[in-house]
């Protein structure tokens, strides 16, 4: 099943009948204030956020006037355009040719870093790349075992230390190992941390510096893992993480539920951090590069 189908599937099954509502809204009738009001509500209910929703609806209103659009169906295409414009994929960081290409995953607790690290390893493995996973979550009980099982399944190498050890030291070793073993890609897991915890954010910055000292230019991509069910706090998360180390992109996880992940529109709008991947399930293959058009269509099409 393609990503868009999976996502849509989730949406259709949703009790709130999101798709039904949008379908109904855009199906027929003239464009009036009630239409805009309802649209704003739908966007907000998708976690797009009040400010961004109002902005989107205002833009739509202006464009509808400019282009003299009368039918709701036409307005839908227009809204699609506007969302895609915000989600512009052009800014997604390009993969470097450098070897090893180092990717660091960060995020709050329970957002899905470890699972995403494994899926990402699987993605590169299918491209026949040599992948090294770093079990950087030395804090959570059994997080290392969790990644170990995944590494086995993905048939990739794993570097670990015992639980409770210093993640920066682990990363120091991991970078040396990656160079020595001539790895193509290094994917680093980190312990989940709330962005409001100063010390833990400093720890993250230290990991970042250790990696960079060992391999100049690395990590080549720092990806923030965001749970699609997260509300407005995700913006604060992105902002805080971005302050302790430069975030290059997002991985939006758990998009197979009824949550619509509209929050990423918000993050992109405010902080200009693009989405790189989306996670849509618990299996190894359930991770795909992000396609803004698919996302916008799935969000708005009926």
């Amino acid at each position, binding site marked *: 099943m393609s990503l868009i189908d999976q996502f849509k599937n*989730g949406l259709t*099954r*949703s*009790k*709130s009948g999101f798709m039904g509502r949008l379908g109904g809204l855009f199906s027929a009738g003239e464009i009036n204030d009630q239409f805009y009001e309802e649209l704003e*509500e739908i966007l*907000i*209910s*998708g*976690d797009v*956020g*009040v*400010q961004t929703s109002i902005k989107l609806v205002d833009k739509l209103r202006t464009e509808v006037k400019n282009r003299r659009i009368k039918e709701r169906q036409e307005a839908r295409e227009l809204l699609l355009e506007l969302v895609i414009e915000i989600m512009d994929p052009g800014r997604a960081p390009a993969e470097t040719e450098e070897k090893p290409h180092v990717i660091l995953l960060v995020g*709050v*607790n*329970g*957002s*899905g870093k470890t699972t995403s690290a494994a899926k990402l390893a699987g993605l590169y493995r299918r491209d026949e790349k040599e992948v090294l996973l770093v079990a950087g979550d030395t*804090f*959570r*009980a*059994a*997080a*290392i*075992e*969790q*990644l*170990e*099982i*995944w590494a086995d399944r993905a048939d990739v190498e794993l570097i670990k230390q015992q*639980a409770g050890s210093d993640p920066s030291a682990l990363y120091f070793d991991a970078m040396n190992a990656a160079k020595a073993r001539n790895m193509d890609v290094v994917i680093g897991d980190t312990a989940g941390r*709330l*962005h*409001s*915890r100063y010390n833990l954010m400093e720890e993250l910055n230290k990991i970042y510096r250790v990696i960079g000292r060992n391999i100049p230019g690395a990590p080549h991509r720092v990806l923030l893992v965001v*749970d699609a*069910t*997260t*509300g*407005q*706090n*995700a913006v*604060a998360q992105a902002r805080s993480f971005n302050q302790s180390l430069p975030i290059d992109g997002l991985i939006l996880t*758990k998009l*197979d*539920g*009824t*949550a*619509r992940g509209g*929050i990423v529109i918000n993050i992109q709008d405010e902080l200009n951090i693009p989405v790189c991947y989306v996670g849509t399930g*618990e299996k190894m293959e359930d991770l795909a590069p992000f396609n803004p058009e698919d996302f916008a269509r799935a969000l708005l099409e009926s």
Partner: protein
Amino acid sequence: MFSNLAEKLQDTFRRLKGKGKLTEKDVDAAMREIRLALLEADVNFKVVKEFVNSVRERAVGQEVMSSLTPGQQVIKIVNEEMTSLMGDTQSALAGPGKGPTRVMMVGLQGSGKTTTAVKLAAHLRREGRSPFLVAADIYRPGAVKQLEVLSESIGEKCYSNLEADPVEICREGLKMADREGSDVAIFDTAGRLHIDDEMMSEIGAIKNDIKPDEVLLVVDAMTGQDAVNAAASFNEAVGLSGVILTKLDGDTRGGAALSVRKVTGCPIKFVGVGEKIEALEPFYPDRMASRILGMGDVLSLIEKAEATIDQDKAREMEKKLRQQQFTLEDFRDQMVQLRSMGSLDDILNMLPEGGNIPKELKQMSLNENSLKRVEAIISSMTRQERYNPSILNSSRRRRIARGSGTTVQDVNRLLNQFSQMQKMFKQMNPAGKKGMGKKMKKMKKRFPF
């Protein structure tokens, strides 16, 4: 963005002066702000609608208490309404009956079930009960191990079986708990999506088999609009008895709490406030309410103002001010009253026209220490001196400075400020002139005494 709803509301109401009652128009303006604030806090939009309507009904036509501004009055109503919606503090779990109390943890992936299960066990142990953990998450790699490690770290027993299916595991685990003489069995189930029919029927099966006394939904406090869908589905599938809100130690406003509470009708029993095993607290509805509103301590200040400022005293004061009989003794009384309300900075912020306080007064009240000093100085005066400061010669001033542990300069400064204050009252008080009452009212708003 809307970090300070109180400020916004007071802004909205600043233009509306001297009203005795909240009119529909006042309330409408406030409701818009409240709606936005709640949406920003991730309260589900349908819940927001209902909530705002119920507040509107209560607010329109209500008399504004004289110690509060209309903005504060609305905040008070909002807060009361929200607190009552949140329910009571109910951290107690079903008590021990025949055999172990059965507590089942359910929720979405990554909400924190496993960690919370262990935290709950530790909490129950502190309450003198003997918990037993059952690892029924056979899907997520490492989940069983995680529970085993954590259980061991707090010295509690844990049952696991990687060969069996979750229903069997729970059944066996329950038997084991009984044999071990434990009086609470906590079942950690796998995280699942509420639209995954297969997985949802699995927890249904577990429930039917072990017949839990408590089914607790573990909800990430950072959840957005979708919280209602998940909560409603879980409630439908297994019938929840309570909710545990996790990751509340972050900076999320936690509007999901209100949504979940509203759609399930279940009490929120505990909140997770940190990564440590002890970081599980009972749920306090009032704290959560002010957190969602993003108003912090302002609410408690409003309550304090209501309770502390004696209405009769305020009236007497107003009379004195008008008749220019304002003495140092009155001055001190107000200081005491002010200080009994808490931090001065907070109070100043709470005042609707905090920005317009005369410079002299502001200088004086810059910090709490200076307030304390003022109080000490005045207390070191004799009664006569307080009523007639003009008799304060340098010898008296030296004595007062010594008595209050200050310097003569401090005493002089206070006396200057006081005489300026008196002058100010005189200016705004041309006896008998029209409009004076209004000015007094304004004055009262500035300084609630």
